[in-house]
């Protein structure tokens, strides 16, 4: 493993660290250290006034550096950690050059254990700008990044945490949440319409959204998936199962009604038409004692059963809507 202490010591002394994140390689400095930030700006050839986003380890830390009201708090807990940068109103507690000229601050909580640990131990936000020179593409490997640098620039880097080639995730999606309507400033990995609604443009994005949902799960839950044929319910469920650690292939349970994978139960009520059949499959019995249950076509349960389910379990309904051939909206 990487030496967290070493990274922290370098950050504390104002050093510049290249390290992996959940999206691309980033350039990390202590965001509250004036000299370190100056060094970063110089490295990136970036003029002061064009903001640099920061990474924090949780919402509590975010609220020390930005004004976050209740509505914004909701958005934070729904989207982070995840591939988003949220633009909030800064409290001017970071070094000059981090906040934008209008006083806004871009905040991330990367979904990366190493970064979270570093920030937690450092106790301060770090810069989370992608490892590239201004105007250039981000990098997924240290090697390709270093190739673009002059010797002078290379000498400015104090530590490189090389994790090899990263999965080619897009950079984060940047969303301004200061107004009541969220504004997407840069389209990245995932698109969020608001705190509870995502746009998926591919199977992979639906999987990412499932990943985001999975990360928020803290206690046993039933995910009721509602939506038309071919909107991604099975893809979503498969990803949840995979994240639960199911090793075998998870296939459509339409024919068998449900597939039991131990802690994970994958159910599909597409073929269920009436109360008799719900009773016959012993619905309320088979869903009990599971950590996560995904139920496709939850609407086929009928209102009464859904109300009952709400009372006895932690039920979350997720709806899948068809927008066009390659676009789905997933509402939490």
């Amino acid at each position, binding site marked *: 493993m990487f030496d967290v202490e070493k990274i922290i010591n370098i950050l504390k002394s104002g050093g510049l660290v290249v390290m992996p994140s959940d999206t691309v390689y980033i350039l990390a400095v202590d965001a509250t250290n004036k000299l370190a930030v100056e060094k970063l700006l110089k490295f990136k050839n970036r003029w002061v006034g064009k903001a640099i986003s920061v990474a924090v380890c949780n919402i509590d830390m975010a609220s020390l550096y930005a004004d976050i009201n209740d509505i914004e708090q909701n958005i934070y807990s729904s989207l982070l950690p995840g591939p988003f940068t949220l633009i909030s109103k800064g409290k001017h507690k970071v070094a000059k050059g981090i906040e934008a000229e209008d006083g806004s601050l871009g905040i991330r909580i990367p979904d990366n254990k190493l970064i979270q640990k570093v920030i937690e131990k450092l106790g301060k936000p770090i810069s989370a700008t992608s490892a590239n020179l201004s105007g250039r593409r981000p990098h997924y490997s240290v090697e390709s990044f270093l190739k673009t640098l002059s010797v002078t620039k290379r000498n400015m880097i104090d530590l490189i945490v090389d994790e090899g080639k990263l999965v080619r995730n897009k950079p984060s999606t940047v969303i301004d949440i200061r107004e009541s309507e969220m504004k997407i400033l840069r389209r990245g990995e995932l698109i969020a319409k608001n705190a509870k609604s995502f746009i998926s443009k591919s199977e992979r994005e639906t999987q990412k959204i499932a990943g985001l949902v999975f990360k928020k799960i803290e206690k046993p839950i039933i995910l009721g998936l509602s939506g038309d044929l*071919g909107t991604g319910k099975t893809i979503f469920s498969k990803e949840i199962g995979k994240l639960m650690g199911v090793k075998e292939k998870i296939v459509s349970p339409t024919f068998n009604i449900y597939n039991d994978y131990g802690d994970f139960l994958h159910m599909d009520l597409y073929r269920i038409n009436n109360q008799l*059949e719900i009773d016959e499959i012993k619905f309320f019995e088979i869903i009990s004692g599971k950590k996560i249950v995904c139920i496709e076509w939850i609407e086929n349960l009928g209102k009464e059963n859904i109300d009952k389910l709400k009372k006895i379990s932690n039920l979350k309904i997720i709806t899948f809507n068809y927008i066009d051939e390659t676009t789905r909206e997933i509402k939490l």
Partner: protein
Amino acid sequence: MKILAIETSCDDTCAAVLENAKIISNVISSQTDLYKEWGGVVPNIAKQAHKERIDLVIDKALRGDLADIDVIAVTQGPGLAVALGVGIDKAKELAKKYSKKLVAVNHIEGHIMSSFFDHEIKFPALCLTASGGHTKLILINKIGDYKIVGETLDDASGEALDKAAKMMGLGYPGGPIIERLAKGGNEKILELPKVLRDNKILDFSFSGIKTSFYYKIKDLPKAEIAQNIKDYAACFQNSVFEQLCRKFKLAIEKYQPKMLLASGGVMCNLELRKRLRNLAKEMNLPINMPYKKELNTDNAAMIGLAAYYKAMRGEFVEDIEKLERDARMKL
């Protein structure tokens, strides 16, 4: 050796009697003459339906008493858990009551076996089994030695056909209806995606075709769908069969079997049978498919045949009390 076999893994309540590898009787509850006895109303998946029918189905298959039966066979899985339970409970009850040996059979092995009746099989053989619940390519080195070399990543092929039929407002099961409509239809009227093009992948995927098809016809006026229904059916069916044959061919090239087998409910489709025969001819290999519908769809005769070979190998259930259904049983 006389075998009574019971199969209740899904919708159909089935029982059969075999004398060694030969079928004496093969009764399936969804046959029309049996429907009448229950007044026609048969819920699709209810356990109660299996419970109501199982005794009658077994009686019909036995045509006598259980005394001269040597072995009782039952499907242990995979399938719908509650449905499996009915067959297993009945098999356990009879085995105990009449002190018979019990053999537990994997439903998929049954489907493989359904193409074995009245034929000499050359090994290694490669079997495509496609039904409402399964779509698999299985390499058979010898009876009892199976390797799954490809399978669906999402929907089964029969399930995809059923769902497409439902989208067009047709009945269930949709496979036979689509087959009827597809005859003479224009397969090229819609452009459906050709999925899993990678020649190294022997797995199947049908949910992408299903989704593409659905959203192509979803907003069309009903009259237009009705007018072109033959073409739509042909188009969807072609897309499913194209993939089945394409992946089957890849597997043949990779594993070089001496014989091809095909089974499962989808093999009732004459167009698919024709395509598979052509494929076999092209590959210069013999092909075996169950010769009648009742051996393609879920049935107990295939379970009986698998049990016959298991019994010959001495693979009986040791502790009858402990036999439990296994809804996701592996082959």
